[in-house]
């Protein structure tokens, strides 16, 4: 006899009644994608951990506002994006002066100089950080986390074409920003 299959909506409806197991199943299923969505906004591991937990707890607190007739995943990803965006804004405000100093130092570099791989990695990370939100999230989820365009489309609430376009623009922008740096291929 096969085990009964519960849809996300079934599980969410059971969570509304306080079912621990249903909530755990949803958490196990969506923990990684939620982390990926949040990591496309934030870089610090502690911030990502805190935001992921906050996402699930906030979703749990608002579970009665979820309509089980609608798909669960986009609703959860919307919560994740809101949490991550708020944390990103908060960190940006808090670290504004610090970031300005880092940027000034970066402008002072000679772009033509030979850079080590670790240094170039940090330049790539800064360049990714500077991308517009849609490009950054699509790029991170596609090129860094390895999700397919259709999966990302569901995560971000957009269509596949938009995801592909954003990834394309992000790659082009990153190459443009990194073009002046010469990579010491011995490190690769």
């Amino acid at each position, binding site marked *: 006899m096969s085990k009964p299959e519960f849809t996300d909506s079934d599980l969410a409806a059971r*969570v*509304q*009644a*306080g*079912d*621990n197991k249903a*909530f*755990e199943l949803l*958490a*196990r299923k969506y*923990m*990684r*994608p939620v*982390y*990926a969505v*949040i*990591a496309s906004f934030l*870089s610090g591991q502690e911030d*990502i*951990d805190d935001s*992921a*937990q906050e996402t*699930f*707890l906030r979703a*749990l*607190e608002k579970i009665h506002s979820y309509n089980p007739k609608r798909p669960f995943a986009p609703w959860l990803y919307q919560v994740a994006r809101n949490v991550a965006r708020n944390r990103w804004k908060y960190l940006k405000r808090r670290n504004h002066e610090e970031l300005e100093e880092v940027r000034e130092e970066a402008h002072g570099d000679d772009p033509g100089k030979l850079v080590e*791989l670790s240094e*170039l*990695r940090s330049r*790539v*990370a800064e360049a*990714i950080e500077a991308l517009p939100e849609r490009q950054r999230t699509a790029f*991170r989820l596609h*090129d*860094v*986390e*390895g999700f397919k365009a259709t999966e990302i489309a569901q995560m971000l609430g957009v269509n596949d074409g938009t995801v592909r376009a954003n990834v*394309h623009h992000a*790659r*082009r922008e*990153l*190459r443009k920003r*990194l*073009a002046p*740096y010469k*990579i010491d291929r011995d490190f*690769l």
Partner: protein
Amino acid sequence: MNEKSNDPLPEELLPPSAIGDEPTVWENRVQNLMSAAAPILAEYRREPVPWWAALAERWQPRLTFAVAAAAVLTLVVHLALPPRAEQHDSSLPLATVLGAGDDAATLWSVANNEVDPVLALVILESETP
């Protein structure tokens, strides 16, 4: 960085994946989340209260207000009414007059009317032909 602009960047340059952690790390994250979620889930599981308790809980503030309003209204009405006529301190008690053998007081006591015997006498005299 001479590759075509639409090719992915070399993997070595990209930041590490956020979802590449060990299964034990993910298990810990799920367990931490479940611990944090336990009070909320317990709240959702709470037995539904009986209808009368729910009604009482719902109406309790209004009921309290209604009782307080009724008390204030009673006080206001009580203060607004004229004071009731009471036996004066200097009046002779009927029992004292009866003890002295006053006929009017005797008659008045038969009527079981515990008021001023002098007033009783005046009334009796006015009603006696």
